[in-house]
Structure formats: structure tokens, C-alpha cells
């Protein structure tokens, strides 16, 4: 539908991209300065950036990012480890499949954050419940993708491995898991942003500093530059995370035909 013709087209498109982001930022700044909305509703871009700088220098921003990221990663790591183990087990062990299949089918579409008050009741209002809620939310996509990846490995490739002399025990590690890796990693790529989202929600609900907590505090104090700078910080963290995962995928799955096609 939109055709890109030649290098001139490419550069043109890139320029248009930069222009569009710059335009939005510019529009923001101008709208704010023209006081189309009150300063409260829309603090100017410059104010927000200034606030970010201020928080950066004072160390608050770094501390907040640190806390949020630590919670996110611990919860994510738990979801990753548990999810891969369960997913692979479901694919290879019939009893595991019988047990987990209904749990996963029911659990996947549920809004798991609804269970947050229960987690708070059971595990308190500090980091433990946050991390567990993150893990609980993020584990489902990992299970589903690990299961699918392990289940769907090419029958003929398995047979080739068998006729080359691999035994059943080594088969899992040497053949099944590497073959499943692209899909397992996709599950991880879905789970990481979920971990961040849930971390923010937990922090907003329970406080405890960290990006989510500070944004709520700023809101309660009607500190709108604070709220906006918080959003910018969170957006940047999200962007970096997703990009980092993409880079890891490219290196890890260098052999995969999708990577090759790039």
C-alpha cells in the first residue's frame, strides 16, 4: 500500500519520522506556553524536562527506577523460570498437561491484578506481594509459548536426531529445548512488558517509592509536572526494555530464519 521507492524515499521517510515526533513535542510546548489548557492540566515540555533533570540530579529518579526495575526483574525471573519449566512439562508429561491445562486456560484471560488485594492480605504490603503479583501475571504467556514451542517441534527433525543416536534423556536438552527457543523467547518478550505494567500498578496501589509510587504521590499533591515527568521516565524505561529484549533476541537467535531475513 505505501511503497517505498529508492533511497530518496527512505531518507524522506526517516526525515518525516523525526519531523513527526519533533512536531508533537513542539506542539506540546507551544500549546502549554499559549496556556490553551491550564498549567495544571498541561505543564509545558520545558517544565517537565526541567523537573526530570532535577530528579535525576537529586538521585530520586535513579532510586525510583532502580526500585521499580528490581521488582520487575525479580518477578520476571520467577515467571520466566517457572513458566518455562511448567510449559515444557505440559508438552512432555501427560499428567502435567492434565493438571495445568485447565488452570492456564482459565487463568490466561483473567485480569490477574484483581487478585492484588488477596496477595496483600496474604503477603503484606511490601515488596513480597508486589513481586509475587508480577510473577503471577507474567507467568501465563511464558507457559503458553514454552508449551507451544516444545510441543510443535518438527517431527522429522526429531526422527533424524533419533536415527543419529540420541538417547531419550539427552533429547530434551540437545534437541527439544533449542528447537523451542524462538517461541520460548517470544513468551519472554511478552512477559517483560507485562512485568513492568504490573510493577507500576502495584506501586501505585501500595506506595513504597519506585516510579509508580512517586507518580501517585505527585498526583495526590496535585504536582502535575511531577506526574508528567514520571510518565516520561516510565515510558523511557519501557522503551529501553523492549529494545534490549530485541537486541538479545537478535544475538541469541542469530540462526533463526527471521533474523536472517532482516
Amino acid at each position: 500500500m505505501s511503497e517505498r521507492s529508492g533511497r530518496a524515499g527512505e531518507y524522506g521517510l526517516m526525515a518525516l519520522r523525526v519531523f513527526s515526533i519533533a512536531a508533537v513535542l513542539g506542539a506540546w510546548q507551544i500549546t502549554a506556553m499559549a496556556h490553551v489548557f491550564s498549567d495544571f492540566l498541561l505543564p509545558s515540555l520545558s517544565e517537565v524536562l526541567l523537573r526530570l533533570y532535577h530528579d535525576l540530579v537529586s538521585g530520586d529518579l535513579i532510586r525510583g527506577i532502580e526500585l521499580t526495575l528490581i521488582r520487575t526483574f525479580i518477578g520476571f525471573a520467577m515467571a520466566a523460570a517457572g513458566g518455562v519449566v511448567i510449559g515444557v512439562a505440559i508438552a512432555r508429561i501427560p499428567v502435567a498437561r492434565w493438571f495445568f491445562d485447565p488452570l492456564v486456560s482459565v487463568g490466561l484471560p483473567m485480569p490477574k491484578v484483581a487478585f492484588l488485594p488477596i496477595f496483600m492480605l496474604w503477603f503484606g504490603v511490601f515488596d513480597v506481594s508486589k513481586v509475587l503479583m508480577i510473577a503471577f501475571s507474567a507467568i501465563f504467556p511464558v507457559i503458553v509459548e514454552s508449551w507451544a514451542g516444545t510441543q510443535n517441534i518438527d517431527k522429522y527433525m526429531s526422527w533424524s536426531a533419533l536415527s543419529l543416536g540420541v538417547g531419550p534423556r539427552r533429547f530434551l536438552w540437545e534437541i527439544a529445548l533449542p528447537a523451542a527457543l524462538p517461541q520460548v523467547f517470544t513468551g519472554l518478550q511478552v512477559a517483560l512488558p507485562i512485568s513492568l505494567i504490573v510493577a507500576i500498578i502495584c506501586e501505585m496501589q501500595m506506595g513504597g517509592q519506585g516510579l509508580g509510587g512517586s507518580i501517585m504521590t505527585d498526583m495526590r499533591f496535585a504536582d502535575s509536572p511531577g506526574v508528567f515527568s514520571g510518565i516520561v521516565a516510565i515510558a523511557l524505561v519501557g522503551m529501553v526494555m523492549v529494545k534490549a529484549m530485541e537486541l538479545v533476541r537478535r544475538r541469541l537467535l542469530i540462526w533463526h530464519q527471521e533474523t536472517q531475513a532482516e
Partner: protein
Amino acid sequence: MTTGIQFKAVHHTYRPPRGKPVLALDGVSLEVKDREFMALLGPSGCGKSTLLYLLGGFLPVENGEISVDGKKVHGPGTDRGIVFQHFALFPWKTVRENVLYGLEKQHVAKPERVRRAQAMIELVHLNGFEDSYPSQLSGGMKQRVAIARTLAVEPEILLMDEPFGALDAQTRALMHEELLAIMRRAPKTVVFVTHDVREAVYLADRVAVMSARPGRIKEIVDTKLPGGVNPEVQQSPEFAQKVEHLWQLVRDEAIKAQAQAEHG
């Protein structure tokens, strides 16, 4: 070492997860002599690949008997190497690592492994591509890796499941010559599944024609050609006669198979 393959009254029922069981093979009896190149020829769905998979040990023999060198087949083994139509390479391994895999399983010492793998890679003319990944290779190259990988463990029997079916006609012709060259250097017993009559006549010593589902052996035709196997022989009248003969045998079965496919 002598190896003969015996199929005795092999039946096989295909049981889909949903739907009725279907009889795929109906009492197949066949003998493949040592060092013979036997082609299994038949229309789609006749069970020729199934017969190959049973011989390979990938499917259990429930009814009948398959023995290799007098011993019943119980499961996959390195004595029966297999090459599939869609290559079935390990995509996360390089060409060299793919070829090395079977050698590692055999606990061959490292320097020897590397030497043998390299020899195989050279045999299939893939020098220079040792560190490439399968996704970087063309179809013909991938199939050559598959052949190298299988031959590296020196199986007595080579099973080939329409190995050149996914390749274009020109590549296929080249692969025929390569396979024949490899067989001249290190002769093996080969069981080769195909639906291409010309390919069967050209490559094989004997061709077993199978009927449409449920598969039976309809007739076995000798296809050794005077003057040896070389590309020119494909122009000879003897070649054309054999192809015509086999095509007549296959034609009726192909029509039956088509009708089966339409009526389910």
C-alpha cells in the same frame, strides 16, 4: 557385512486423533538385497513413506515383521540413516555442527570426529560453508548437509523419503548425479521413496510399485540399465521403455488415489 532387508506381511493402520482409523498398508512383503538401490514408487497416500518410517523404526510395527540382517527392527538406530524431503536440519547448529552431531553421539574422539565431518562436507561439495546456518543455505545445499549428516555415521542402510521433492528440476538433476557419485564411492543399501517415475528408473536397481491405499506391492520391476548409470542413458530407448512400463503400472493407482482424495 551383509545386510538384507525383509518385509513380511506388514500391515499398518493410521489412527488419527479424531476420525476413523484407516488401513495404510495391507500386507506388504518385500525383500531388499544387500547393496541394492530399491525405489518405492507409488501415488500419494499409498503408504510408501509409512513403509519407510516403519523400517526406520519411527513407527511401531504392530502387524507383520521387518528385519534387517536377520534381526527384527525395534526402533530407530544408526544402522538405518534417513534423509527427509524437507531436510530436517537442526537450525540452531551450523553445517559443521549438524554433520558432527551423529559422530558426537557415537563417542568418536574429537580430532577424528572433526576429520570425518570435514570429509563428509567435502564429499557433498560444501567446503566453505562449514560455519553457515541452514537458514542461509539454498534448498539443494540444505539437502546436501542432510546427506552428509546421515552418511557421517556410516549407516549400512540409507533411507530416503522423496529427498529431492522440494528442489527445483535443475537442482534435482544435479543432486541425482551427486547421489550416484556418493554411492559409487561407498556403496550402501538404499531404500528410496518417490512418486517420480523417471527418477526411480534412473537411480534404482529395482523399483517396487505400490498400489493406492491401502498399500500393497503391485509389481517389482528391474531397472538396471545397460551401459551403466549416467545422464546420457536417459535418452536411450531402453530407458523410455522402462519408464513407459512403470508409468502404465502407476497410472491406474494414481487415478484411484485421486478419487480417494476427492471422496475422503
